[in-house]
C-alpha cells in the first residue's frame, strides 16, 4: 500500500468504482465500520460526538489512524435526516439540501420533533434517534397532492419544528438566522476535517440523497402504522401523494449534482413492511422512476434495502445493469449475488451482531468464508449490514475484521 495521500485516495476511489462497474478491483472494497464506537474509542461521550464538531472530527481521525484498511472514512456524529424542511425550502437551492441534515447543535436551534439526541432527550452516551409521528392528518392528503411544497412549508413544518411553529414570528426568523450561523460554523469545521481526511488518503466527493416517495410519507408525514392503514383506507390518495412527491424529491436529490455528486444514497424503510402486491403497487413505481431519472442525469444510486428485501428482490432486475449498488441489511447477500451478479453491485455482508458479540478468531473465519463466497466475479463492496457499531463493541473484534480484510481480500 502506498503512503502518498493522493495516490492512496486514487487507489481507494478506483477500488470502489470498479465494484460499481461490476468488475474485480485489486482488493475487495471495504466501507469500514464506524458509529458510536468511534466516540468511545476516542474517550468522548455520545453527547460530545454529536454536539462538538471539533471533538467528533478528531475522534474520527484517531479511529482512521488506527484502522486504515477501509476505502471510505467513517462518519463524525450521526445526524438525523429531515426532508420536510428541505422540501419546504426547495426553491432555495443553496439551503435546501443542507436543511435535511439535523445534527445536535442545529437541533438545539430548530427543535425538530422527529430527532432525539444524546445529552438532550436521551442519556449522554446514547445514539441519536429518529422517531416518526403523524404530522399530517389523513384528510390532508388532497392538500399535499395539490401543492406539496406549500403544504409542507405551511402545515407540516410548523407542526414538526418547534422553532418554526409560528411562521413569520420574530422567533421563527431568529431561528433561521441562528441556523445559518451554526451551519457556517459547521462548514468551517467540515472544511478543515475534509483536509485532514485528504491527508489520510481518503477520496472526497459529495453524495446526493433521494427518498422513496412512500418512505417520505411514512417516515416524515404519517408515521408507518398510520400509512399502513392509509394504504387500505385511501389507496388512491396515497398513490397520488407518492406521485406528487416524486418531482420535488428528485429535484432535491439532483441538486447535489451541482456539488459534483454522481451518486445518490436511497435508504429504504417501508420496503420490508410490504407484501409484494403492496410493494409493487405503492412503493416500487415511484422509487424505480426516481432511480431511472437520476441515472438519466448521470447519477447512480446506492439503495439501502433495510430489513429483509427477499420477497422483492426480482424487481431490482427491472433496472438496467450497472444502475448502482444494492446495500443489504438482512437479505441473504449470497442469494442476492446469485440473482444480481453482472447487474447490481452488492454492498454489505458483515453482520454487526457478530462484530459486537463474537470473538476475533471466529470473525477471522467468518470474513474468510464470506469473502470467499462474495468476491469472485467482482461487483461486491464489503460493509457492515447496519452503519452503527455501538460504544461497547470490542476493539479486538473490529481489529480482527480489518485484518481479515487485508488477509483475505486480495483478488
Amino acid at each position, binding site marked *: 500500500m502506498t503512503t502518498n495521500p493522493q495516490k492512496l485516495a486514487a487507489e481507494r476511489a478506483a477500488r470502489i468504482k470498479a465494484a460499481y462497474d461490476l468488475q474485480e478491483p485489486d482488493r475487495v472494497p471495504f466501507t469500514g465500520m464506524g458509529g458510536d464506537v468511534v466516540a468511545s474509542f476516542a474517550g468522548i461521550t455520545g453527547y460530545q460526538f454529536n454536539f462538538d464538531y471539533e471533538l467528533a472530527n478528531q475522534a474520527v481521525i484517531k479511529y482512521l489512524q488506527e484502522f486504515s484498511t477501509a476505502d471510505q472514512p467513517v462518519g463524525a456524529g450521526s445526524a438525523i435526516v429531515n426532508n420536510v424542511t428541505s422540501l419546504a425550502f426547495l426553491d432555495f437551492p443553496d439551503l435546501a439540501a443542507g436543511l435535511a441534515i439535523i445534527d445536535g447543535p442545529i437541533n438545539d436551534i430548530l427543535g425538530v420533533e422527529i430527532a432525539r439526541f444524546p445529552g438532550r432527550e*436521551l442519556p449522554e452516551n446514547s445514539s441519536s434517534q429518529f422517531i416518526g409521528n403523524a404530522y399530517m392528518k389523513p384528510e390532508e392528503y388532497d392538500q399535499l397532492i395539490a401543492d406539496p411544497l406549500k403544504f409542507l412549508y405551511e402545515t407540516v413544518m410548523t407542526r414538526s419544528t418547534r422553532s418554526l411553529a409560528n411562521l413569520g414570528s420574530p422567533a421563527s426568523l431568529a431561528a433561521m438566522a441562528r441556523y445559518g450561523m451554526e451551519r457556517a460554523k459547521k462548514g468551517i469545521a467540515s472544511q478543515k476535517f475534509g483536509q485532514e481526511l485528504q491527508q489520510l488518503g481518503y477520496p472526497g466527493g459529495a453524495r446526493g440523497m433521494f427518498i422513496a416517495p412512500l418512505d417520505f410519507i411514512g417516515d416524515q408525514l404519517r408515521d408507518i402504522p398510520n400509512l399502513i392503514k392509509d394504504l387500505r*383506507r385511501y389507496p388512491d390518495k396515497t398513490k397520488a401523494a407518492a406521485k406528487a412527491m416524486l418531482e420535488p424529491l428528485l429535484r432535491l436529490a439532483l441538486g447535489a449534482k451541482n456539488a459534483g455528486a454522481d451518486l445518490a444514497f436511497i435508504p429504504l424503510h417501508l420496503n*420490508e*413492511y410490504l407484501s409484494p402486491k403492496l410493494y409493487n403497487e405503492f412503493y416500487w413505481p415511484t422509487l424505480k422512476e426516481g432511480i431511472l431519472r437520476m441515472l438519466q442525469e448521470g447519477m447512480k444510486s446506492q439503495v439501502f434495502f433495510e430489513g429483509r428485501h427477499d*420477497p422483492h428482490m426480482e424487481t431490482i432486475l427491472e433496472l438496467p445493469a450497472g444502475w448502482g449498488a444494492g446495500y443489504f441489511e438482512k437479505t441473504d447477500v449470497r442469494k442476492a449475488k446469485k440473482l444480481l451478479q453482472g447487474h447490481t453491485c452488492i454492498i454489505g455482508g458483515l453482520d454487526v451482531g457478530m462484530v459486537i458479540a463474537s470473538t476475533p478468531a471466529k470473525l477471522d473465519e467468518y470474513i474468510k468464508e464470506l469473502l470467499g463466497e462474495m468476491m469472485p466475479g467482482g461487483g461486491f463492496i464489503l460493509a457492515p449490514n447496519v452503519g452503527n457499531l*455501538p460504544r*461497547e463493541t470490542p476493539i479486538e473484534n473490529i481489529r480482527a475484521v480489518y485484518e481479515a480484510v487485508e488477509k483475505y481480500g486480495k483478488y
Partner: protein
Amino acid sequence: MRKELLKSFVDMDEREAVRIAKELVETDGGPVAVLETCKEAMEEVGRLFEAGEYFLSELIAAGDIFNQIMAFTLPKLQQGDVSSIGTMVLGTVQGDVHNIGKDIFKVMAEASGVHVIDIGIDVPHEKFVEAIKEHQPDVVGMCCLITLGVDSMKQTVEVIKEAGLRDGIKIIIGGGRVSEAVMEHVGADAWADDAARGVRLTKELLG
C-alpha cells in the same frame, strides 16, 4: 358468523370484520365468540407471516383491526372469560426510544392470551427489576431497534441477575438487530427479529 368474521379479519377486510364483530358481539355468548375468533385470526395472520405470505404491513393492520374490535368487545366480557397463558413484562431497553416493533409484538402477544405489562421505551435497567418484583412475570421481553440496544440488553440482564431474579424467569429479546450471536452475548433464552416469531417463542417459553 364466526367463520365470516375470521375470514374477513384474516383477509384484512377491516370494514367487514368490524361490522360482523359488532353484530356478533350483541348475540348470546357473542363477546366470548368475538374474542376467540379474533385470537384465532391473529394466530392465523402470524402463521401467514411466518410462512412468508404476509408482511409487516399485515401484522400492523391486523393489530389495528384487533384493537378496534376489542374496544367494544372487552367491556362486554365477564371476569373469567379472558384466560391468560402467562404474564410478560415488556419494554424497549434503556437508550432506545423506538416503539413500533414493541407495539406490534404487544398486540399479537395479547391476542395470543399473554398478559402483557408494557413498561414503555428507554426503560432503565432498574425499572425492569422493579417490574419483575411487582408483577412476578413468567417471561421478560426486551426490545431494541438500534445497535446501541444490544449492550443495553446485556446490562439489563446482568442487573436482573444481580437482583437474584434471573432464575425464576425466561428472557426473550426482540428487534431489528438481534440474532443468535446477540442472544448468547446478552445471556437471554430466546430471540426474535419479527413479532410473529417472537410470539411463537414466547408461547414456547411459557411451556
